[in-house]
């Protein structure tokens, strides 16, 4: 092997070894941090660092390499001195700088932005091992912008051409002018946004508006037609009234009574007519609004050649529950009678009528209250005549009330008796009076003596008497004869 070849081989090995050292070192730094300095990796790195010596310097960071030797596998081993990076976030710049200086092996590198506030982030990240000499870059919270407020002047009275300069002089910007649809101002009013006297940030644009009417919402109109009567005799006058909701001034109305050609458009909303023949007529009213919109409404009237008043009468005005009541319809006048008349009887609010060929119907009611009945008489021509409303009062039968009353009285009497008995018993138990008469206990109640069966007898025993005197009992004796 030539010396050149050998030199090239040595250079190749050395280059490979350097690459391996840097790779291994990078792995060590990248290993996640130092939650505790006593962690195995930290202890190992720290132990290794004690025997390390500086070998290579790169930029501001010092990389300590003790050995760079080829391992059997072909990789080299790097050993460095490291430091656990503290957490500087939340500190002010000065606090963070002081903390960095206090941490052996770190130094302050940079802080951005320069006029920032507290530390938001840091590089290197906290709680990670980094080689001694690592510079720390801090990211600070951007400073709060300073408000420069200006009061908005009134620009509504200014000429359009002068507004911009006026606002610029006031420290504001002109946002332009426009027509704005609004209900807040009468149409044509000039107003501004923001309004006059409001405090805003400097250079806030101020707009000038001219109020315009907002688009009109289409109003929904309703038209109805009301007749003064729906059942008429021939030549009987009937009037009609058209009702437009909401009312519109200047609307025109045209009535078609159904018995001839329709009327012309007129400003009156009422009209009257007399029908000269019998039949059912449909009346149509057409309303024409100033906007050109037109609406229609209809109603019908019946015109009778003969007309009857129907009187409905019950045979009982007052009855007990479930008692059949005969309701009889009487036609006035009784002659002529309607041809093939049919009677539609309505009771209370029943939707389904009782239809009969006879002018009478029977009905019983189960519940005690006032009930109502009416009848509609219809002839073959389709004419119909409604009766009055007849009322009947339905009451409960008397006997349950009587029995109930007797039962109530009986119960009451029993109750009173029981209570009286209890009171009497109570007196006997609690209100008796004990008295002593002789050797007997006499128990009395207000009603008199009830028990004299007791005897209380005191039995005396012989007296046991003893005496005591300190000396002689007799102190002195006087005798006389």
């Amino acid at each position, binding site marked *: 092997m030539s010396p050149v070849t050998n030199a090239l081989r040595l250079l190749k090995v050395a280059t490979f070894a350097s690459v391996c050292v840097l790779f291994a070192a990078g792995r060590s730094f990248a290993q996640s941090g130092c939650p505790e300095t006593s962690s195995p990796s930290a202890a190992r790195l720290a132990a290794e660092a004690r025997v390390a010596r500086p070998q290579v310097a790169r930029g501001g960071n010092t990389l300590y390499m003790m050995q760079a030797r080829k391992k059997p596998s072909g990789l080299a081993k790097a050993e460095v001195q490291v430091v656990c990076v503290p957490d500087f976030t939340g500190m002010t710049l000065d606090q963070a700088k002081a903390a960095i200086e206090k941490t052996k092996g770190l130094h302050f590198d940079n802080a951005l932005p320069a006029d920032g506030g507290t530390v938001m982030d840091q590089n290197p990240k906290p709680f990670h091992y980094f080689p001694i000499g690592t510079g720390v870059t801090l990211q600070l919270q951007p400073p709060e912008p300073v408000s420069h407020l200006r009061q908005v002047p009134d620009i509504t009275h200014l000429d359009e051409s002068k507004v911009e300069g006026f606002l610029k002089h006031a420290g504001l910007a002109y946002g332009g002018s426009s027509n704005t649809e609004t209900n807040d101002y009468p149409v044509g009013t000039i107003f501004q946004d923001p309004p006059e006297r409001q405090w805003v940030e400097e250079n806030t644009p101020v707009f000038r508006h001219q109020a315009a009417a907002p688009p009109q919402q289409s109003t929904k109109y309703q038209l109805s037609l009301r007749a003064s009567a729906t059942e008429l005799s021939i030549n009987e006058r009937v009037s009609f009234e058209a009702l437009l909701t909401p009312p519109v001034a200047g609307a025109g109305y045209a009535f078609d009574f159904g018995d001839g050609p329709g009327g012309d458009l007129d400003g009156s909303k009422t009209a009257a007519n007399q029908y000269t023949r019998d039949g059912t007529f449909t009346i149509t009213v057409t309303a024409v609004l100033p906007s050109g919109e037109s609406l229609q409404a209809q109603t019908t009237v019946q015109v009778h050649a003969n007309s009857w008043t129907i009187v409905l009468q019950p045979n009982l005005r007052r009855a007990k529950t479930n008692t059949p009541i005969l309701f009889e319809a009487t036609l006035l006048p009784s002659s002529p009678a309607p041809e093939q008349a049919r009677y539609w009887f309505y009771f209370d609010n029943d939707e389904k009528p009782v239809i009969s060929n006879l002018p009478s119907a029977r009905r019983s009611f189960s519940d005690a209250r006032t009930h109502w009945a009416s009848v509609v008489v219809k002839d073959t021509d389709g004419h119909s005549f409604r009766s009055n409303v007849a009322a009947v009062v339905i009451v409960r039968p008397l006997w349950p009330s009587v029995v109930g009353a007797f039962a109530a009285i009986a119960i009451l009497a029993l109750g009173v008796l029981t209570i009286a008995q209890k009171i009497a018993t109570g007196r*006997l*138990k*609690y209100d*008796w*009076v*004990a008295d*002593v008469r002789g050797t007997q*206990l006499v*128990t009395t109640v207000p009603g008199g003596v*009830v*028990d004299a*069966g*007791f*005897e*209380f*007898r*005191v*039995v*005396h*025993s*012989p*007296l*046991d*008497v*003893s*005496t*005591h*005197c*300190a*000396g*002689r*009992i*007799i*102190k*002195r*004796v*006087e*005798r*006389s*004869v």
Partner: protein
Amino acid sequence: MSKTELNMKDLFGMERGKGAVVEREKFDNAKSATELKDKLAKKSKLIRWDAVKDVMAEKTVEMFDIPLVKVLFPAWKKYREIMEFADPEKHPPRETSLISLAEHTVKTDHHPYLQVSYRGFQFPKLDFTLSAELTLQGIVLRIQDGKIKEIKEGTVKGKGSLLLEKELVIERPFGSYDLPGSFDLGDGIPLQDSDAEHASARSGR
């Protein structure tokens, strides 16, 4: 009650509305009274125990109805010196002696019982103990013909109690009572007991 019938009831102030009050509640603590209560309840549901206790309280008053002469005179008779005045040879009948007694104490115990019966049925008796201690001061007795004719002077004071079994239902000290005029001694109380009195003493009445 006249003064001539001075008795233990007067000393204890047992007249209605005055003096000692029977502690009726104490009846409930006595075994015999509780037994009586239970048995009464079995006899009739209408019997109210409170009413019975009222009567018992009334009856305890009766127990104090002991004339004081029945205490004092037997006590004095226990003194030989006094009994010498019963000797007609030493003290002839016409001789009147006024004897002044030194202060002395008389103790008496009495064991009455209350027998309650209902429609002929007798309940267990209720045993009472009446104790009194009487202190007699300045007593001057007039004795003639072997009889105590009069208590001329003297006062009595002391204290007393009544127990139902072991329950103290009455306890009362009583103040000083003047004895002269308190007894109607009639012809006098003989110092020597007659046969009838002996018999009466034996029967306990």
